[in-house]
């Protein structure tokens, strides 16, 4: 370990001040499940590290809208049933001991095949509050994930805002084992219907690119249509057509592409059959 300084700020103010003063050389770490692993391996050799365990961002509040502090652990989210799809996604990630450490905010920075909670949050149209010494701003998780550099220098992710789902949700993580498994593909969907017709659809896919992505073509195809075997199959195949997943130790790109249509079909079927 080459680290010369390790900071453990006791407040958000102290954290953003440290970040402003020390600049991009300061590695920011929350649960440590990604950063510590890379440092232990020698893949990451920072001089200075800031840990966020004591900044007080580890609470979930439901005052009007659901707000998740960035350093809330996945275990805490797994035990909060405000939005069932989010607890389900949190429970599907890694194993108990890892979930006691890994954070919701950190999950948004995770690279494929991790990021299951980010996938559920993407389908729920979550927004993020980021803070720097110059103030704060809110951006959508979709923009955050799509950007090459997630945050500007000096910015810290503080809160995740989740609008209450207006429709029905479905989530399915497909891995090679039942528990503690990286995703072959993970799919989260939020479908709103008026009568039989879909009025809004958001579908997020993980395992198919470096970060979770929206299946925009499938979403567009579903809006204005009823959910039935024909529309579901067409949307699921279109979603698979759109992606070019990576091959890695977990699964081949070919298999992942195939599984996008199979698993999305299952998720949409599940939503179709749910009681409303």
């Amino acid at each position, binding site marked *: *370990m080459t680290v010369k300084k390790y900071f453990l700020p006791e407040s958000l103010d102290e954290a953003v001040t440290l970040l402003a003063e020390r600049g991009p050389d300061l590695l920011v770490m929350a649960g440590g499940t990604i950063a*510590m692993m890379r440092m232990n391996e020698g893949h990451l050799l920072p001089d200075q590290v800031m*840990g966020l365990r004591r900044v007080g961002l580890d609470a979930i509040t439901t005052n009007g809208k659901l707000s998740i502090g960035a350093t809330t652990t996945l275990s805490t989210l797994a035990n909060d049933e405000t939005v069932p799809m989010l607890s389900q996604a949190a429970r599907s990630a890694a*194993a*108990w*001991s890892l979930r*006691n450490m890994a954070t919701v905010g950190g999950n948004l920075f995770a690279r494929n095949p991790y990021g299951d909670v980010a996938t559920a949050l993407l389908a729920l149209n979550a927004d993020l509050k980021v803070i720097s010494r110059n103030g704060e701003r809110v951006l959508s998780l979709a923009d955050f994930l799509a950007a090459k550099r997630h945050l500007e220098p000096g910015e810290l992710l503080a809160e995740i805002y989740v609008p209450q789902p207006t429709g029905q949700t479905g989530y399915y993580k497909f891995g090679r084992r039942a528990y503690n498994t990286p995703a072959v593909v993970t799919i989260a969907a939020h479908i709103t219907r008026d009568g039989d017709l879909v009025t809004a659809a958001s579908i997020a896919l993980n395992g198919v690119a470096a970060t979770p992505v929206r299946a925009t073509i499938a979403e567009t195809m579903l809006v204005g249509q009823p959910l039935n075997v024909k529309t579901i199959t067409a949307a699921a195949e279109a979603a698979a057509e759109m992606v070019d997943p990576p091959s890695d130790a977990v699964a081949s790109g070919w298999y992942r592409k195939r599984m996008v249509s199979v698993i999305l079909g299952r998720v949409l079927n599940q939503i179709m059959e749910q009681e409303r």
Partner: protein
Amino acid sequence: MAAKVVSFTLNGRETEVMVKPLTTLQVILREQLGHTATKTGCRQGGCGSCTVLLNGEPVLSCLLPAEDVAGQQVTTLEGLTPIDGLHPVQSAFFDHYAVQCGYCSPGMILTTKALLDRNSTPSREEVVEAISGNVCRCTGYTAIIEAVEAAAQALKGGQNGR
């Protein structure tokens, strides 16, 4: 590399250590405090052999900076083991041949202890889920799962562990 003094409660005892920046709890336990029941496996958070209990919750000491546990309660296998004999979870592992090379056992036993503290009658499914972060390459898990179930029975029968 300014070292800092970190105080925490280790197995019920106030403990003070000098810690270099970002040294993991795993390294402090093994190399400074001689608590070698906590193993060093993958150091990537993947194998669970370094599992310790932090305020009763299983965490991975290889990913945990020692400074982060200041003022908190850490339990290792040494803390679970009575001066004479074995903790009921340890006895169950012994009786059910759930130990072969033994490398995963400290993590398995601590995870089991944490599980049974929360849920004294876990289903087989719940046992499997709970220990899914602890990798065993010898026994094939069946013996371990049976040991956890036996430990649950034993603890229910009144032989309370510490």
